[in-house]
């Protein structure tokens, strides 16, 4: 009996907490349908006949920010950077673990070291280098993401590869596979769980990243976070209506994606936290 009662109390506490956790998102959603002058003053009331503006904010917001174009660039940069990171860093991780020499082990420590360097340390100089090398476009930035993201990714792949027995690869090579075939046919399938983790961590980082794309390509190409921040810097006072609607549009795809892959996302994040 006592146990049952405890469970009910726990359940109620959790229910209240989840309402508190969801409330901020719901409040933004509700406000995205209110006239822009009613938002700052009464954010906690539902729209009524005078404040309800249908999709007006969405139309205004999309016009001001170009969010659809920004969404395209966010998607483009995230997808191709993550693909590049997965393929290149898994190969690198395997190579520097299997071919043992001083150069490779020095490289391993360099990759691990880069993980602790905060972005601000290289912010200015990286932007300059990207400029000089003409990497300041949506394709060039993929190389930057590969370079700056390689630390964690190589580190995670190497860690996992160390635990795979060599026999399988040796057998494949004796059977006449060259290293490339061995890697793609034998090693890569085994690396799949780590690849999922690496993909999730990098997707979360690149999709939400503001400062790096802002500095490297921000003047010509906007990603979603840049487009939203632009609402503030571009026009003196913030158009709160446009802001609310754009926040909703920025959040919705993330939540949909999360609900479909939450098992992988949560597991990936735990694995990343423990190993990183």
């Amino acid at each position, binding site marked *: 009996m006592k146990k049952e009662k405890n*469970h009910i109390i726990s*359940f109620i*506490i*959790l229910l209240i907490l*989840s309402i508190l*956790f969801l409330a*901020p998102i719901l*409040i*933004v959603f509700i406000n995205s349908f209110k006239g822009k002058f009613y938002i*700052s*003053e009464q*954010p906690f009331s539902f729209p009524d006949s005078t404040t309800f503006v249908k999709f007006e904010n969405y139309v205004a917001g999309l016009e001001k920010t170009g969010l659809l174009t920004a969404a395209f660039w966010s998607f483009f940069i995230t997808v191709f950077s993550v693909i*590049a990171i997965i393929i*290149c860093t898994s*190969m*690198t991780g*395997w*190579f*520097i673990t*299997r*071919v043992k020499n001083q150069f490779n082990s020095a*490289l391993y420590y*360099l*990759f691990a070291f880069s993980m*602790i*360097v*905060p*972005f*601000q*340390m*290289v*912010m*200015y*100089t*990286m932007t*300059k*280098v990207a400029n000089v090398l003409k990497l300041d476009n949506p394709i060039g930035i993929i*190389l*930057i*993401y590969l*370079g*700056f993201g390689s630390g964690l990714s190589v580190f995670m792949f190497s860690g996992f590869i160390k635990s795979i027995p060599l026999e399988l690869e*040796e057998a494949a*090579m004796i059977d006449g596979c*060259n*290293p*490339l075939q061995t890697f793609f046919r034998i090693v890569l399938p085994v690396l799949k769980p780590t690849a999922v983790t690496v993909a999730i961590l990098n997707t979360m980082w690149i999709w*939400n990243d*503001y400062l790096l794309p802002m500095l490297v390509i921000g003047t010509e190409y906007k990603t979603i*976070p840049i487009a*939203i*921040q632009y609402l*503030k810097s571009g026009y003196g006072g913030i158009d709160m209506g446009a802001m609310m609607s754009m*926040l909703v549009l920025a*959040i919705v795809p993330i939540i949909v994606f999360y609900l479909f892959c*939450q098992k992988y996302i*949560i597991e990936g*994040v735990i694995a990343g*936290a*423990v190993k990183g």
Partner: protein
Amino acid sequence: MQKHTKKYFPIFLLPTLVAFIVAFIIPFILGIILSFTKFTTVIDAKWIGLGNYIEAFSNKEFLNALIFTVKFTVVSVITINFFAFLFALLLTRKVKGTNIFRTIFFMPNLIGGIVLGYIWQLIINGVLYKFGVTLTFKPEYGFWGLVILMNWQMIGYMMVIYIAGIQNISKELIEAAKIDGATSFQVLRKLTIPLVMPSITICLFLTLSNSFKLFDQNLALTAGAPSKKTAMLALDIYNTFYGSTGGEGVGQAKAVIFFLIVAIVAFIQLSFTRRKEEEN
């Protein structure tokens, strides 16, 4: 086999290596060198020794940002881990709907910092409106606003790590303790907490480095207002670089100091986990 594989160096290693050199190695080395120079366009750099560092440490805004960041980090680390652990305990009690609750609590962690900042700006300003002020009225408001935001974002993240840790504890051990007459509180203190110590270490350092390096949320929520009093280190460095011309050298020196602090914390963490592993 190694010799044979070695010949494939250009395919396996080169793409990552080139990107790594361009995006990290060169900017990093250049960054250290430039921190000892005065420059506006890199090419015109003039060696001035420690001048930038002296200027950085006598810069009021920088010192203020450093204090603000340390305070914020301490408060966030404690509150986030306290609540995350509590949430994790609640969710490991076989209550109905555990999965749905976990899904909800974790969700804010996926939303980007800029978006989070504007969500909370709306809500906190909405509450403060009733008192006739705004978020940027006093630095304290911005401080607690950031703490609340950070808690909302990171509690779920730390919670899932704690849940994984708690679920690793063997059920028999807890049952045995209960049969021996231990109260729930004793089980928590003498069994659960010591056994999830590895998770606690991970979470402490994760919240520490995330809070210390915070930028996007800071920029969106207050952008340092009022008068740069709520600017954290990362934002202060950004402002030094891009807020005015001529500050690049000092900005780079600040960035190096920032890096050194983060690196020291990381090494402490490393030695911590190493020692733990040796004990086991």
